[in-house]
């Protein structure tokens, strides 16, 4: 090949390499961006009057006087809607409209949607379900429901060769020629006055318990469950991990036994996480019976095994990096081996050990598969500390899965799902950033 060609080849190879690094960045951003942007929506959003009503009723937050004023305003704005629909209902009842039976069902559908938008009508008995007691609490949801009020989804099967196509038809057409016709332009124009959207910072999303299966409120039960699981995991994994590392680095003589131990540690690191879950079920719950059924304790024990290799490896590396001279100095002063490890080596290795611990905390927080059968439950109240020994808990990773795939109203609580994912990812990222910074400091120290 000519030199020229070789150079072009060289440059294009470099280019391809850079592109793949670039794609790495892109993939990270593509994954995180929607989670961050939409996840923030659980904390910062335009809340409607219904949100403020809910907050006042359930938590006593907000000023009564101000709320009353706002409610008054919205009732004024909504009056037209209430009147129109009740009037129409009366007319149907009294058969004042031609073919009134035709409108019966359509009117009911419309009324349900309007209730979803602005809550139950005045004078009606209070609905049983909490979700029916309030209208749309978020402005973005309000607009989605408005769309449903204004338009009917229909399926177009006109082309028999293709799959049915979704088309939107204005609901107005269903009520052509009736008094209700006026309702649609009115709602569209006066929605803001009816809902009074206001920018809301709902940082208590993290610490509020959820109401009515996550239709309202926050994610405290999940956050607390995750914290319990992480702390429980660390309670078991840290001592065992550090002691194992101390044994392997300071006490064991290199030989067959130690290399066998190391092989098994790397084997443990390779066991699929779902297998840990099955093992936790078969061993901790069915055989040892640490608890009657799933519990935070069983989950913590299972997760502890999962993160053990990470902690052992990080601690080993940190201990090996401690200068030998510290050890010699301690020995020369007459310290025993154990004493040297406890008073000199471990303190010096602490930053490195902590890095490993922090990373495994992130892992314990995010792992789902091991806790499915050992600790997690879809619905539940925040646990007290004592209850962790015997009871399962909701936890962020599991409930993300659960809300996305098994919840009745998946679409309606997207903001909660994104908020949960955001919280979990932030938790893990903050832990890992901490570890990265800690490691950078250590390597800086070593270079000095």
């Amino acid at each position, binding site marked *: 090949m000519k030199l020229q060609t070789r150079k072009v080849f060289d440059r294009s190879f470099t280019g391809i390499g850079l592109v793949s690094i670039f794609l790495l960045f892109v993939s990270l951003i593509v994954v995180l961006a929607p989670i961050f942007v939409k996840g923030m929506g659980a904390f910062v959003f335009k809340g409607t009057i219904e949100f403020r009503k809910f907050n006042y009723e359930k938590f006593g937050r907000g000023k009564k006087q101000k709320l009353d004023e706002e409610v008054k305003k919205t009732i004024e704005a909504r009056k037209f809607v209430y009147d129109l629909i009740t009037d129409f209902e009366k007319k149907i009842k009294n058969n004042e409209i031609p073919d009134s039976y035709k409108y019966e069902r359509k009117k009911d559908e419309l009324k349900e949607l309007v209730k979803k938008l602005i809550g139950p009508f005045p004078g009606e008995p209070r609905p049983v379900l909490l979700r029916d007691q309030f209208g749309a609490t978020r402005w973005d949801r309000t607009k989605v429901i408005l769309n449903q009020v204004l338009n009917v989804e229909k399926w177009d099967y006109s082309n028999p060769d293709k799959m049915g196509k979704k088309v939107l038809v204005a609901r107005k057409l269903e009520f052509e020629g009736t008094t209700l016709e006026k309702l649609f332009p009115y709602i569209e124009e006066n929605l803001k006055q009816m809902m009074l959207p206001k920018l809301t910072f709902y940082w208590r999303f993290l610490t509020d318990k959820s109401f009515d299966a996550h239709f309202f409120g926050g994610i405290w039960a999940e956050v607390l469950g995750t914290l319990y699981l992480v702390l429980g995991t660390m309670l078991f994994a840290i001592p065992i991990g550090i002691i194992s590392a101390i044994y392997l680095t300071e006490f064991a*003589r290199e030989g067959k036994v130690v290399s066998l131990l190391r092989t098994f540690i790397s084997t443990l690191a390779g066991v699929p996480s779902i297998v840990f879950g099955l093992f936790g079920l078969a061993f901790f719950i069915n055989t040892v019976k640490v608890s009657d059924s799933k519990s935070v304790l069983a989950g913590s024990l299972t997760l502890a095994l999962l993160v053990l290799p990470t902690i052992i490896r990080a601690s080993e590396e940190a201990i090996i990096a401690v200068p030998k*001279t510290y*050890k*010699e*100095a301690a*020995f*020369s*002063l*007459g310290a025993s081996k154990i004493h040297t490890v406890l008073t000199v080596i471990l*303190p010096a290795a602490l930053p490195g050990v902590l890095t490993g611990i922090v990373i495994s905390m992130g892992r314990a927080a995010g792992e789902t598969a091991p806790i499915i059968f050992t600790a997690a439950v879809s619905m539940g109240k925040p646990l007290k500390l004592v209850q962790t020994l015997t009871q399962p808990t909701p936890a962020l990773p599991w409930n993300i899965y659960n809300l996305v795939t098994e919840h009745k109203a998946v679409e309606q609580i997207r903001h909660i799902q994104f908020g949960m994912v955001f919280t979990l990812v932030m938790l893990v990222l903050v832990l890992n950033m901490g570890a990265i910074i800690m490691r950078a400091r250590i390597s800086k120290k070593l270079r000095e």
Partner: protein
Amino acid sequence: MNQKKIQLSDNQLKKTSNFMDWGKPHIYSKDFSVFYGSNEAIKQVHIKIPEKKVTAIIGPSGCGKSTFLRAINRMNDLIMGCYIKGKIFFDDEEIYGQYADPVLLRKRVGMVFQKPNPFPKSIFDNVAYGPKLHTSKRKSELYETVKRSLNRAALWDEVKERLNNNALSLSGGQQQRLCIARALAVDPEILLMDEPTSALDPRATGLIEDLIGELRGNYTIIIVTHNMQQAARVSDYTAFFYEGVLIEFAPTSELFTTPKEKKTEEYITGRFG
């Protein structure tokens, strides 16, 4: 004396009768060898190191002088595959005897290393580390011990204001004096120094050497050094090691002016090493 020095030139005889009457021997070795695996690092050394004097050990690198020093307080125990043959006594007790306890030994045989190696703790905690190990002193007593040790190591005036600062914030020379203070804090009888000034600048070296001069008479000091001038300056006796063999052991003034062995002469006149 004459007879002895003639014997010294004869390797065979040296092994059986190395006696020097320079006061009570504090460390006394007989047929003492150290092995790393199959490699014999120290070869059948006989030596009597006198009490409360400064003894320097010199020799080219790799001659086993550090190994010998470390054998005295059993620091070699840490190295895998290291074992000894023969006997070495400390105050007439066998250092490697069946019931000898390395912890008790090391409490009485302090050591200062090549590179200053203070713990990454406060200055106070560094000095108090040893006393805390061996006694259960109260805080005030501990403070007195720390103060006395730092005083003896001529460091007190420089650090008394900042006893709680990290020891690593001190300069290299100060760190080494801190290490000496740390070793003195457990009231040892012997102080082993393994090239204590090799990592220091000339000024700090001078300070350490002055310190050794001050400690003389209170402690038995054994100092391994690369630097013959240093050995000449600080020591009362000097031992010359070559390839694991003790070639000559004599009062420092004698060894440097009238060496009896050809190897010694070659070394001190700079023909090798």
